[in-house]
């Protein structure tokens, strides 16, 4: 009897788990950084030249780095190893697994065991800076990152780790194959041009040429924040417009950027490949669709490269960004430039960490910025676009390269809106409702206004 039950249980288990294992590989995240089967093509790092001066007194110190950018976890560990070889300082890289970065760092602080350094979003740094962080205003690298620093009451508390940009990713080959002619992305400068191009693609057989994610972070943060960021294309401008919306001096209903943003959003909605069920769209499938040529555009940022690469795109392929077109004015910067700004920040704990640990952490940050090895690893191993002018290396994937070139040619605007932490979640839901066609402009704008009215 007992044996029978056991046999039954094991058989039942096997039956239930077998399909789970078979499907396991298909619903995982496309860019799973922990996947040991994933082959990472890596550019070799030249370690022969190293003029960086290491402080031998710091050798043997242990510091920790909390990493909230999952796709560079392995790369950061390699950087840590390399740094330890040279300096003797051990850097333990801790991933943020299931929590939000902020929740994780706060719980570590509350348990009295915070990481020496944490990679966080700008909003999180601002929330924590004065209470927990060490003042970094006097560090040399602040001069190299001019224009990309985040200041809290005139002081710098964080190192900008990378520049990230977003817009309409295009697959040039697909467009050229469909139209049978050369495609010049710079020739598209207005919403009208863009719509005309989409129509031509539809005529050429690409029925629905656009992919857009249904995820709330994409809709609520990456789409919607254009409303604030295109005010005048600066972070200060974005703060100004948010202030005006909050105190009621700006009426969102009559704010021209709000309507223009929705004009563009409506166009994307109309040509959306998942138009029949926009909230059922699958993120991993979008990368595959773009790489395979089922679609020609995908609204996303340069962080989407690992997904595209997994879907079969090569470093030599022609991908790039079009701006998020707001209107039909050729001279409007929003139609000419793509958005690119520092996104992740490294904050240094100033509360619990000992002076020696802080010094070691500062050395690590300097090493990233100034040493030949650190500079190379930032770009080649981590695949980041560093905001530091002294870094001579160029990123190799087409998306980062496009952002890099546009930043250096002045064809990108550096604006990132600082919004409350739940902005993406609350307004992402409102945007989802609009995307699904279950609310109209009026209702959407009212819910945005209500959200801001509730903020203190």
């Amino acid at each position: 009897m007992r044996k029978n039950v056991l046999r039954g249980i094991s058989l039942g288990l096997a039956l239930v788990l077998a399909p789970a294992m078979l499907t396991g590989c298909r619903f995982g995240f496309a860019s799973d950084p922990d996947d040991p089967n994933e082959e990472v093509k890596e550019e070799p790092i030249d370690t022969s030249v190293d003029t960086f001066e290491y402080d031998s007194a710091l050798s043997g110190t242990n510091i920790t780095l909390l990493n909230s950018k999952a796709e560079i976890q392995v790369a950061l560990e390699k950087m840590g190893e390399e740094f330890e070889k040279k300096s003797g300082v051990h850097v333990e890289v801790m991933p943020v697994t299931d929590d939000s970065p902020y929740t994780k760092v706060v719980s570590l602080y509350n348990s009295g065991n915070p990481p020496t350094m944490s990679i966080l979003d700008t909003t999180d740094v601002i929330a924590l800076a004065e209470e927990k962080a060490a003042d970094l205003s006097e560090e040399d690298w602040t001069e190299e990152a001019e224009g990309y620093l985040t200041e809290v009451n005139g002081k710098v508390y964080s190192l900008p780790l990378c520049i990230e940009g977003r817009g309409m990713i295009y697959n040039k080959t697909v467009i050229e194959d469909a139209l049978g002619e050369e495609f010049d992305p710079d020739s598209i400068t207005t919403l009208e041009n863009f719509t005309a191009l989409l129509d031509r693609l539809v005529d050429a057989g690409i029925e629905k040429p656009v992919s857009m994610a249904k995820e709330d972070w994409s809709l609520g943060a990456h789409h919607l924040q254009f409303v604030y960021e295109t005010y005048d294309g600066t972070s200060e401008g974005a703060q100004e417009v948010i202030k005006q919306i909050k105190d009621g001096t700006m009426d969102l209903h009559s704010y021209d950027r709000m309507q223009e943003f929705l004009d563009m959003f409506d166009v994307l909605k109309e040509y959306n490949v998942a138009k029949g069920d926009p909230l059922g769209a699958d993120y991993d499938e979008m990368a595959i669709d773009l790489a395979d040529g089922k679609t020609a555009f995908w609204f996303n940022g340069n962080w989407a490269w690992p997904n595209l690469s997994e879907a079969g795109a090569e470093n030599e392929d022609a991908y790039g960004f079009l701006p998020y077109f707001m209107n039909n004015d050729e001279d409007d910067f929003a139609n000419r430039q793509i958005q690119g700004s520092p996104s992740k920040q490294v904050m240094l704990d100033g509360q619990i960490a000992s002076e020696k640990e802080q010094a070691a952490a500062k050395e690590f940050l300097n090493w990233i910025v100034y040493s030949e090895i650190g500079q190379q690893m930032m770009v080649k191993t981590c695949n980041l676009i560093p905001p530091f002018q002294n870094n001579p290396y160029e990123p190799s994937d087409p998306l980062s390269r496009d952002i890099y070139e546009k930043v250096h040619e002045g064809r990108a605007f550096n604006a990132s809106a600082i919004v409350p932490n739940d902005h993406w979640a609350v307004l992402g839901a409102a945007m989802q409702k609009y995307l699904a066609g279950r609310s109209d402009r009026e209702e959407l704008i009212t819910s945005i206004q209500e959200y801001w009215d509730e903020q203190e």
Partner: protein
Amino acid sequence: MKSKNNGKDFCIFALPGLFCFIAVVVIPFVYGVYLTMTDWNGVSAVKNFVGLKNFGGVMKDAQFWISLLLTFKYVIFVVVIVNVMAFGIAYLLTRGMKGQNFFRAGFFTPNLIGGIVLGYIWQFVFSRVFVNIGESTGWTAFEVSWLSDPSKAFAALVLVSVWQLSGYMILIYVAGFMGLSEDVMEAASIDGASGWRKMRSIVMPLMMSSVTICLFLTLSRAFMVYDVNLSLTAGAPYGTTEMAAMHVYEKAFTSRQFGVGQAEALILFIIVACISGIQVYLTKKKEVEA
């Protein structure tokens, strides 16, 4: 003799357990109640006492009441379906049918899979498998993902929870049925009771202790649902399937209003405690000895 040892026995047997209970249940609970009366944001070193202001915040948080209402709806569906199904299946599985041990194990296994994993598996089923079936057969019910329509997403949540919870309840009911005394059953038959009459007058009263446990377990688990909610729908589409526990978490950690979130958690606790208390009291009254 007995009284002499009492102190020592208490120290040896009760203190370790008591210590653990106080450390991980009582202290955090009291601390949590204290937090509802502060304006703590989770980070700052100072916690200002604000009295009952956070409870005012709860009143104003319309979304909390909406999600609480949704949770009630969910609990009713889950508790009723799970218990009716589990009772029925357990009844069938104790009648000596062929392969019943295999079926018992089979029904129980979903319960062994963690809620998060289960949610992801079903998410795949609803948004890919069903849609593919819909595309190839033309069945309109499966044409678009269930998870992108508010009422279908809710139905999906209920379905998955029932699938997960029933196995456990089946096990308890099976144990209950196996414990029924043969003598009593035989006596009932001899007295001429059969079918429905036997079920209502003999089996049901004797099964009440199992019902008490099962109702209590399903009630509390359904009220506190979080893992399946998070991995299956994450509140999608547009926040319409966000249950109370998930809303509390979002309020505290995403919106960074610890005080209000904690106050909402406390209200949720009181509601669940009251309802399960009343349920246990009522069903216990119906229990009989054979």
